[in-house]
């Protein structure tokens, strides 16, 4: 338990009567990389601001390194933030920006200069001391912002969509660099993004947020392979969601049926009773389309398209649910209007939105 750096306990917050956070809980261990993933407006930035002390929660506690810091002002916390728009001080040069945290702590000038130099080499900007923020490119500003936040050696670094303003190539490069920095320094990162790919590649754990609640907190593999809710399945795995009821159970295999047909799924250690309504998440690349199959969900091909080397086939199931199949290569002889059945292996269908999971 000693290595728990951050603990959020039942945090609630509303702005002018509108609830933004509805009782969230989160713990972060020393050196962990945790990503808060969610669409805009889900409350992830507010969560970050509460950890930083820029907002005060209406209810709940923020524990930093075991101490209740809920009411502490931002300048009293061992936490630093990389802001979304970098927030570099426009009237100070790179050296003054990075050294600001140490200047506040009244460290001697020589030491500040040395530390800034170290930080600059860490973020690969050696020699940029005298530049003004307005003279830097987006990627360089990003590095300065990170260096500025790291110079205080915080226990916790908060990053609010730090790569949001960068182009794709630079983004990839910075993702790796951030990961490298985090490993090297062993600082706990709380990282915000709305990009599920970024979350999956960088994080130790991902917390998926919706409407001020955590939908699921788990490792990238857990979140991707066994989503707990249909939202997580759609947002992280771009999965298809189908609705139906439990038909029968044979050991670990459960038969699912809807008006479109029947298919089975793996119970994953959960108990089901016949007649129980159930929602399944099935990722497009793990389903197949077959003509004249016995089992599976019946539907009509609506549309075919290629994107990113993948063939995407949109099927309208006979219960009006859209199902998108995708696979590599161009192998489909299917044409719009064809009658098909959607089939999958039981272990590729994941039951979601189960009652007991909801907090």
């Amino acid at each position: 338990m000693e290595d728990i750096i951050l603990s959020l306990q039942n945090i609630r917050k509303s702005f002018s009567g509108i609830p933004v956070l509805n009782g969230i809980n989160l713990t972060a261990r020393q050196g962990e990389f945790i990503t808060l993933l969610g669409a805009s407006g889900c409350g992830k930035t507010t969560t970050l601001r509460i950890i930083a002390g820029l907002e005060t929660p209406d209810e709940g506690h923020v524990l930093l390194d075991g101490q209740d810091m809920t009411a502490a002002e931002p300048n009293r916390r061992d936490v630093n933030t990389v802001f979304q728009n970098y927030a570099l001080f426009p009237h100070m040069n790179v050296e003054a920006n990075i050294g600001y945290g140490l200047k506040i702590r009244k460290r001697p000038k020589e030491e500040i200069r040395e530390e800034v130099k170290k930080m600059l080499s860490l973020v690969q900007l050696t020699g940029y001391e005298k530049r003004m923020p307005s003279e830097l490119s987006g990627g360089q500003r990003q590095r300065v912002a990170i260096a500025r936040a790291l110079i205080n050696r915080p226990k916790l670094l908060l990053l609010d969509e730090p790569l949001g303003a960068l182009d794709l190539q630079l983004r990839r490069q910075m993702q790796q660099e951030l990961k490298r920095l985090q490993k090297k320094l062993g600082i706990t990162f709380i990282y915000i993004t709305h990009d599920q790919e970024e979350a999956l590649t960088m994080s130790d754990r991902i917390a998926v947020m919706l409407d001020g609640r955590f939908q699921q907190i788990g490792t990238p593999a857990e979140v991707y392979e066994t989503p707990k809710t249909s939202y997580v399945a759609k947002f992280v795995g771009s999965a298809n969601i189908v609705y139906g009821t439990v038909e029968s159970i044979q050991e670990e295999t459960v038969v699912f049926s809807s008006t479109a047909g029947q298919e089975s799924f793996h119970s994953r250690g959960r108990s089901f009773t016949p007649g129980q309504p159930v929602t399944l998440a099935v990722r497009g690349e793990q389903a197949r389309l077959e003509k004249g199959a016995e089992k599976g969900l019946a539907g009509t091909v609506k549309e075919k398209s290629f994107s990113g080397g993948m063939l995407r086939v949109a099927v309208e199931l006979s219960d009006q649910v859209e199902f998108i199949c995708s696979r590599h290569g161009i192998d489909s002889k299917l044409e719009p209007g064809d009658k098909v059945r959607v089939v999958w292996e039981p272990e590729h269908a994941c039951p979601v939105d189960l009652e007991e999971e909801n907090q």
Partner: protein
Amino acid sequence: MKNRTRLPQVYLGFLLALMYVPILLVIVYSFNESKISSVWSGFSLKWYRELFRDSAMFEALGNTLVLGAASSLCAGVVGTLGAYGMTKVKFRTKGAVEYISTLPIMIPEIILGMVFLAFFSLLGLPFGMTTLIIAHTAFCIPYVYMLVKARLVGMDKSLEEAAADLGASPVRVFFDITLPLLLPAIVSGMLLAFAMSVDDVIISVFVTGVNTNTLPLKIYTQMKTGVTPKINALCTLMFAATLLLCGLAAFLGRTPKKRDSKKELS
């Protein structure tokens, strides 16, 4: 087509020229030898010499500068702090106080003059520099307040948050981040306030004391009674000072703009 595109420039040019004619005439006639301003009798600097011998004029100049500096300084402090507080904290009376505090530049000056005359005599304040400074501060505050507020509204809030996040106390944030970023707005507000104070006749007429003369008041009385070309010389020098001030304002106004536009480009 050509006609249509040229017309605006001609109009602007003509009107601008017209605006400068009276000013240029004042300057030209300040070098006139003759005492009667309708007759040109040759170039002379004698009115300047006479002006510099006039100690009352220097006293009035001194008063004007002291008044302008004091009231724009007071306005700078009160207006800046006020604008800062008003954007940070929500009060129920905020809108009303904001409206009332900007009234002095929206209502006709004569009302302000009348109001201060009556109020100061009610309070029993002796008329003189003190009353002048209070009255001028009243109409100087809105200039600083409005310019600083506009700047604050446009300012990125996360800059202050970043400083707090790095360990700066609220006071430290204000002096390290907020104030330096507001400085151009504060300075141009104070310059504007200074110019307005130095130019004021109407309010000063009412609140000045018997022994406190300002330059505009002196010019005003002389214009009403009888003009000597000395006034031309004085006006010319004042115009030169205005030019300097305008240049300074333009110089100060340019630097932050450059920064902003660069920031937006990225």
